[in-house]
């Protein structure tokens, strides 16, 4: 809990500072847009967080977005599939890819970094090949405004992706922090061997985390595709996996596994978006975007270490 409070305080302070420096930060349009992005990033960050809690990592998410975007566009514009079916199919594909990663990690015993790095390369290449390296969109297809509502619509002025994230976050909070499955995830992440000696099917638990990550990537991928409304297969979603990892780490997940919380991950995702916003609003050259993010993550992690050591001494 202490960790989440720390990063939450950082988020609040940052918001206040930006709001003071540029009151436009609090403009409804800005807040809404930011909430939309937080929602989208938050969803897949939760998925990546699950994998990180098992001691693994998922680098494939960004490329999965590109692949899903391309496939979604083809399904809707060329095959004219019903919207709901296409969305379901895409989410199922993403979960299937997660399952594949999980099986490669647990059955073939390849390191998660390698498995998902290969995924990162492979799906990007596949997306570009399928799309013929051309930008895909949904322009010509009609009748899926309802679907697009998922990305661009609002519910009582709250952007849909944010609502989605809250719902998914609430469900995942119960799953991770209150359910038997969640306890197993932490146990396996801490010490797979001891978990196995306690009768836990650790391979299945680990593989399932990758499926969850795939599922979240599927949902976020659909939202992202509708949000950008055009998918350029060589750049769509690139680096997104790193945002997810950064959000999870900022939110208290340890890359060694066995540590982390849903609330922390969500706050981590929010913090990253506020930082982006800060760069835009304060007139910092956008070329410094990544540098600012890198510096803040580093400072956050160092501060956490310092507090941890203080607490250990006390």
């Amino acid at each position: 809990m202490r960790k989440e409070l720390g990063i939450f305080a950082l988020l609040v302070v940052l918001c206040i500072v930006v709001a003071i420096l540029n009151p436009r930060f609090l403009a409804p349009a800005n807040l809404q847009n930011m909430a939309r992005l937080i929602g989208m990033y938050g969803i897949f960050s939760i998925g990546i967080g699950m994998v990180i809690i098992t001691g693994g990592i998922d680098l494939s998410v960004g490329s999965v977005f590109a692949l899903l975007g391309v496939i979604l566009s083809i399904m809707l514009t060329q095959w004219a599939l019903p919207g709901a079916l296409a969305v379901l199919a895409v989410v199922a594909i993403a979960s299937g890819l997660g399952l594949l990663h999980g099986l490669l990690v647990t059955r073939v015993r390849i390191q998660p970094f390698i498995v998902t790095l290969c995924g990162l390369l492979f799906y990007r290449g596949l997306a570009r090949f399928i799309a013929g390296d051309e930008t895909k969109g949904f322009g010509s297809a009609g009748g899926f405004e309802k679907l697009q509502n998922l990305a661009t619509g609002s519910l009582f002025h709250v952007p849909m992706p944010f609502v989605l994230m809250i719902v998914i976050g609430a469900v995942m909070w119960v799953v991770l922090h209150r359910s038997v499955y969640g306890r197993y995830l932490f146990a396996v992440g801490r010490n797979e061997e001891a978990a196995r000696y306690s009768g836990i099917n650790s391979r299945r638990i680990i593989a399932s985390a990758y499926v969850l990550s795939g599922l979240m990537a599927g949902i976020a991928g659909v939202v992202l595709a509708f949000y950008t409304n055009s998918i350029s297969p060589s750049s769509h979603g690139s680096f997104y996996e790193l945002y997810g990892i950064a959000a999870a780490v900022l939110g208290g997940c340890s890359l060694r596994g066995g540590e982390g919380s849903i609330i922390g991950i969500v706050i981590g995702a929010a913090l990253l978006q506020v930082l982006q916003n800060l760069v835009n609003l304060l007139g910092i050259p956008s070329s410094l975007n990544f540098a600012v993010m890198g510096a803040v993550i580093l400072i956050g992690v160092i501060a956490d270490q310092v507090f941890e050591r203080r607490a250990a001494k006390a």
Partner: protein
Amino acid sequence: MTIPLLRMAGICKRFPGVVALDHVTLEVGGGEIVALAGENGAGKSTLMKILGGVYQPDAGSITIEGRDVAIHSVSEAIGLGIGFIHQELNVFDNLDVSENVFLGREPLWGAPLRLVDRQKIRSQTEVLLRRVGLSVPADTPLRKLSLAQRQMVEIAKALSLNARLLIMDEPTSSLTLTETARLIEVTRELRTQGVSIIYISHRLAEIEQLADRTVVLRDGRNAGTLSRGEINHDAIVSLMVGRDLQHFYVPPETAGQTDRVQVRNLRTRRYPAQPASFTVRKGEILGFAGLVGAGRSELAQTMFGVDRAVGGDIVLDNQPLKISSARDAIKHGVYLVPEDRRNTGLILELSICENITLPDLSRYARAGLVARDAEQKRANEMCDKLNVKRPSVGTRAANLSGGNQQKVVLAKWLSLNPKLLIFDEPTRGIDVGAKAEIYQLMRSLANEGVAIMMISSDMEEILGESDRVAVMHEGAITGILERAHCTEEAIMRLAVAIPRAA
């Protein structure tokens, strides 16, 4: 009177909330082996850490050859000729023997390039290896050495630093019987070379064999000193606990006769050509003796399903079992208390409560959600029953002593319904008080009808606690002895596979 090599006098050390040492005195003469005994928490480690420069004492003096010294750091301790052989070895298995011995102070040549003089470290290492009686080439990769051999490398390293006083902390806790005998021999040899040794061990038989003097600590104070002639098992134990432990081991009352578990031609992956067959009777403790590497732990792991069986059958209460994972074993009431309690027995970072309920968490859950009250209530019950000393069941398992950790592992299984309990080195690194409790518990479980297998490298434990003893050698069971025929010699002969009465 001669001046002792080391004299620690009036040493006090306080930690927040505890007085770890209260005016403790310890003297070690030149070429003397002093055993330091005491239960866990008696202050042995703290005293040795002060000597090794890890902790600073709050009060008291340390003199070496009559000279007052203050030891502020580990390197100062080394500079004074004090070598520390830790229980967990600090060796690098990606380096070779000589590189380990000279790590951090390699002789150099080719001045500006700072190249390692490999010739020199090898020849110097070989001299040291002869002193500790280790006959391997100095360039052997460390990972090819056994644990016992690695320990010798550590000792060689201490000697290379001109150690005059070696602190050996539980050096035999993971050695086999023959390796232990070998270590004792080397320790004696070092004494004749004039090296003094402070020897910490829970195995009182070793202390009897080895020590010139035994200093016993209890609750951070000197409880007494026994000279060579006075050292015996009972005297040490009564000083350690301050009372006579009459029922240390709990021998069987009546041997059960019905078979509860039958193992037929079980073959492990380690020794696929050696089928093992035996039965465990209802209510008996079947001891498993043998050298480390005899395949005892592999047998246990195979029966528990964490290792795949190559072939064979396990029959429990006349029901053949199909065990292909720990889940299966647990479902059938077959549980393992593993040797490596810190890595496989427990998840140290989880709380006591979470560890205890892990195998059957669904029992405390409704619709997949854990009912924390029920879970904690159960954990508290189990901890009370097993006398686990704890601040609360929310305490992380890592913060418990070895004995209490072992009790948590047991609590985990006893909250289920054990039919066969396999203990692998149940009391390794556990203090005498907790040991006695674990023996009592084992016996009362046996009396309740649970079949118990107890793998142990501690001969006293095997002899004191088993109804029968199965002895293994290189994967095969070379004999099963009834309690009446169990002697150390008979077991050792089978363990090294000398045929009985040739």
